[in-house]
Structure formats: C-alpha cells, structure tokens
C-alpha cells in the first residue's frame, strides 16, 4: 500500500494529530466515502425534506374553497420532468396561451416568431392548440427589479390578472375555461410569477388584498382567485419537445457548430427548486433547459468557466449603468465564450441576457476587447436548424452580434436570404403580409 500522506504525528495540513492519513487505495477510499458523497451530491441531496413544495399547499387551499387551480389536464398532453430535488413537474405541450415578453417582442421579435413557427411545423393549430392575443400585460417585474417602483401586491395582482385571462381566453374561440394554459416567454416573468405564487399561497393577507382588486376587475371565478398548477417557461416546452423537433423537423446538420449556453439567472436562481434538471444533460448538475435542445440537435455543446455568471443586464444597469453592463458581459461572457470555448454561437433562454450579450460587443473595441460571438435564443437556433428563414422567421436582422457568421457556417446563405427579405419588404409595403396565424385570432374581445 502506498503511503499518500507523510505521517509525522502532526496530522494532515495542521488539523491536529487526530487527523491521520488513512492511506487507503483509491477504490477503498471511494467505498469508505460512498455514503458521504451520496449525501453531498446535488442530485441526491434530499433538501426536499427541509423544503415545502408550494404546490401541496395550493391543493389544500383549493380544497378549503380559497382558490381555483388552473389544472394541466390530459388535453394539454403534459410531459413529466424532474426538478432540482427530483420533484415532478408537468409541462403542458398543447393548448398553450402565449404570455409574451416585452423585451423579446420589442427588441428580439425572432424569439416569439421562431417559437410559433416551430409549433406550426409540429402540426399545432392556432386558435385551438395555441393562442397569441392582445389581452395581456407585461409582468412588470423588469421595472420592479430595476426601479423598486411596484410592490408585492401589484406584482401579485398583475400575475393573477394575466393568468385569469389565460384561464378564460378559450371561451372566445369556442373552448371551455381552462382550455389554454399559460406559457411564459420571459425568464424574469417566470421567476417573478413563481415567487409571487409562493407568497400568495402562504399569505391570507396578501390574498385578501388582491382579491379586492381582482374582484373590481371582474377577474375572480366564483369569487375565487385562479392560480396555475405549474408555472411553465417556454424553454421547458422546448426541452420536452427537443427530440420531436430534432427527429421530425431538423433539416440542417449542426454537428460542426460549437455552441455555448447562457441560462438565465431568473430561470434557475429564483425558486430554484422548480427548475428542470436532467441526468442526461450536463450530468444533472446544472439546469437542463437551453443546453438540452442544442444537444438534441447535435451541436457541440462547449462548457466554459463562467457558465453560472449573470450576463450583466441588471435591469436598471442596462439603461443607466451601461458601463457595468457592457464590462461585465464582455469580461465574463463574450470574452470567455470566444477565447476559452471558441464558440460559434452563444444560446440564451431569456430576454435581458440576449439583449445584453448581443448589443454590448461592438463597444468592446474601445478597450481593445475585440471579441464577438453571435447571440440568439435556443429556439431561434433550433428554428434555423429546422430550415426557418433567418430573416422572415428568425428575424436576425434585429441582432447586433455577427449572427451571419453562424448562419453561414450552418450552410445557409445570409446574402440570399437577405435579398429575399428585402424583396419581401416591398410586398409588405404593398400590404401583402404573411402571417403564422390568422391575425383575427389575436384580437381579444
């Protein structure tokens, strides 16, 4: 047996004589520490015993007649996934109410268009299998995290208003209440809604306050608040649909593409027990969304040392502390993705991160930081791999980062697509607009 540590009676690393080397062989050491490793391994660490599952309390409240739970039924064709502590989460795959993101719609419109295009390609029928309508507001959490204007009550009222609308939205289209289940596009909305739901379920005072507001708006059902069974992010839908997307829709080989992933902080750092983890993705040690679809499509997913870091968005910082935002995103994301991972693309799953990383590369030149990486959402990359037009559908013309480079590397001609799009703009001016769904469906009554 090899002696691994000198034993001079002083103990290992000055810890005292009690701590003597065991001098076990590696396999013996592994066996001896098996129990400890099992209990500190994040995937098996049973924190769930010390942590409440808010959904249990939600069912109790419904039983007591306090709330109505908007259920995910068989008609929503749910797929079960596991979250951080191995809890089950149902992800509905059909009859979805698109809860849009103000940052995506205002700034990265290819994000929602790529998502709806993918749904159409999978055979989903607009107005029956999904709805994109005008009766919804932003979650207001960007403003809240940026400015502090707003409060728990206003965030909760906005959450309940929008989700009530999702609950009743089917009626206009000849469906039952509860037909459409909300699919949240924005990571911050998702994190914020989950946090707010927890407090709503816990606090009778908060429920009483917002019940008055929702009552005034005519948004109670039988005098009760409507709370969704699950809060679902679009990237979770992409995660559970990834194999169908790859097997049924993919037309372009992306195996030469080196992809890095930045997963939004508000997806997995807020109410972290509800984020999806999958043992086949990043060893189950990091949240699976974003990465899983890149893997399923066959891209080379490249890890990098600052994976856990935030993008630098900062909510108010991107508006009024831009030096912070651009420095952080360049130092901790763009430069690392370029130098360490030699990435062809950085995929995101959220609004603020993509805006931050996409828009703040050019200014790096001012400090001799000549690093650039194309930035887009997982679903935009996925749509490209499935043959979507880079301009008309993926709307990459709104991106400042060099997306043309990755598009060309995928074997799609940027120049030809651009020419086609410029010709299409003339058609648009003449009123000949192509839609992904009948525009009349969007108008809420």
């Amino acid at each position: 047996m090899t002696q691994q540590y000198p034993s001079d009676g002083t103990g290992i690393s000055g810890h005292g004589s009690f701590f003597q080397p065991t001098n076990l062989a590696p396999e013996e050491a592994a066996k001896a520490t098996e129990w400890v490793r099992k209990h500190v391994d994040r995937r098996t660490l049973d924190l769930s015993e010390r942590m409440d599952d808010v959904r249990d309390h939600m069912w109790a409240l419904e039983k007591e007649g306090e709330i109505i739970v908007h259920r995910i039924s068989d008609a929503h064709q749910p797929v079960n996934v596991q979250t951080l502590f191995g809890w089950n989460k149902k992800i509905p795959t059909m009859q979805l109410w698109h809860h849009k993101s103000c940052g995506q719609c205002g700034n990265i419109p290819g994000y929602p268009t790529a998502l709806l295009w993918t749904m159409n390609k999978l055979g989903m029928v607009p107005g029956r299998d999904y709805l994109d309508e005008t009766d919804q507001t932003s979650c207001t959490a960007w403003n809240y995290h940026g400015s502090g204007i707003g409060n728990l009550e206003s965030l909760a009222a906005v959450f309940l208003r929008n989700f009530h609308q999702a609950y009743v939205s089917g009626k206009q289209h000849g469906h039952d209440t509860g037909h459409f289940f909300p699919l949240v596009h924005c990571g911050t909305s998702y994190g914020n809604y989950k946090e707010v739901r927890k407090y709503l379920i816990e606090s009778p005072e908060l429920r009483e306050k917002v019940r008055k507001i929702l009552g005034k708006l005519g948004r109670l059902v039988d005098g009760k608040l409507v709370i969704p069974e699950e809060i679902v992010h679009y990237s979770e839908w992409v995660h559970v649909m990834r194999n169908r997307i790859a097997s049924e829709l993919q037309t372009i080989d992306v195996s030469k593409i080196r992809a890095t992933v930045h997963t939004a902080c508000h997806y997995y750092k807020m109410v972290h027990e509800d984020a999806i983890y999958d043992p086949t993705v990043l060893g189950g040690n990091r949240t699976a969304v974003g990465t899983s679809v890149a893997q399923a499509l066959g891209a080379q997913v490249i890890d990098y040392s600052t994976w856990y870091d935030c993008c630098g968005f900062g909510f108010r910082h991107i508006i009024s502390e831009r030096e912070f935002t651009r420095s952080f995103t360049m130092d901790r994301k763009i430069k690392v993705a370029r130098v360490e991972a030699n990435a062809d693309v950085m995929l995101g799953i959220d609004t603020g991160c993509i805006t931050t990383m996409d828009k703040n590369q050019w200014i790096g030149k001012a400090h001799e930081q000549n690093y650039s990486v194309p930035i887009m959402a997982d679903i935009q990359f996925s749509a490209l791999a499935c043959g979507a037009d880079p301009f008309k559908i993926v709307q990459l013309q709104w991106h400042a980062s060099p997306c043309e480079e990755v598009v060309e590397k995928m074997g799609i001609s940027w120049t030809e697509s651009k020419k086609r799009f410029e010709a299409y703009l003339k058609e648009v001016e003449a009123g000949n607009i192509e839609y992904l769904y009948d525009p009349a469906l969007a108008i809420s009554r």
Partner: protein
Amino acid sequence: MATYAEMQEIFEDIKSDLRYDHELNGCLNCGICTATCPSAHFYDYSPREIVQLLWTENVEQIYDAMQEKIWACAQCMTCAARCPFKNSPGGLVAIMREVAIKHGLQSAKDVLRPFGRVMLKLITTGNQLSPDMIQPDHFPDWGPNIQKVEGNLKTLRKAIPLRTLQTTDTAWEVSLKTSVEMYTIWEMTGVLKSLEIMDENLYDVIQDFIEEKREEYEELVEKQADTDD
C-alpha cells in the same frame, strides 16, 4: 440626514414586509454571496454586508446603505441561489428599494431619473419596452450593426409574421381594456402614489394620460353596447 427615529422607522418598514422573514434566516459571514455577485466586481457593494446590517439591525448603517449601495445590485439572485442559509440578499435589496421610494429618499429620486421613459411606457400601456425606444440613435454604443436591414421601422415591424407584434410604440398590441385594468391595479396597490413621491411631473403626465384612456374606453364600451342593441 435623517434622525435616528426616522431611520428606525425606515428599518421597521423593511422588517414588516411579509417577505423579510423568508429572505433573512441567519448569516455565517461566509461571503459566498459576495464572491459570486456581479455587482461586487464593480461597485462598493457586498450582499454579505447588506445581510449583516439587517441581521444585526444596525439602523444607521442600513440607512447609509440605502443612499447608494442598494442601487448597485443587479437583481440576478445568484446570491440567493448560493446562500447556505437560504437568505436572499437580492430580495432584501428589493424590499429596501421599495422602502427608499416610500420615504422619498433623494438617492432613489436620483437613481430613477433616467428610468422615466420606461416608467411612462409601463404605467400607461402595460408594456415596459417598445421598438421605438430602441433606435440606433439612442444607443450609439451598440454599434453600427444594431439593425442589419435598412428600412422604415413601421415596415420592418409589419414584416414580423405575428399580428400582435406589428407595433412600434408598444412591444405588442395591448387591448385598451387591458391597459385600463392595469390603471386600476396601479391605483389600488399604491404604485401611482409612489410615483408621485418620486417624480411629480411624470406623475401628472401619467394621470392625464390615464384619464384620457379611460374616457376613450368608456366611449368604446358605449359604442359596443349600442351596436349590440
């Protein structure tokens, strides 16, 4: 400078938020929150310090931190994900910001001045960001490739194949009824009152706008009722 009694009142307001007891559970001073904090790289800001000040109920230093430090937080919540005590320093900062506004602290007014346009957009439309706010002229530091196809903003937005996104002054088309519902939420939750404390001029502009939109909505409802008859 506030009196000790005023500072004590500010602290009591922070402490009385129902989230407070969830966000603060103890502190070992391990510093993992600060080690992982993006803002700590660039500012004189430490989430560990915020937690310690609150934990030790140091009302003077809490007041001091509310002058500038709390505005450095990027609200990414990395600290919350890492804390072995399940504290949320970012969540505590959010409460402190709300209280800074409630008490009309000058620091909050200064910090929020550049946020006026976003606030106006949000309160009046229920959207926080719109395409016409992100024009190349507003962001020269975003470089010359901010838009890869030349053209009129209206036409480019019309070329998005989703009806709801063919807008320029809101991120998506929001129905008038929806916006009017938002005004009720703002009023009943005291958000408009906070705005009045922060920026009276902005508040006046918003009030006029809300009044106009409510009238417009009432006319629309009457018109619809007539049509139904």
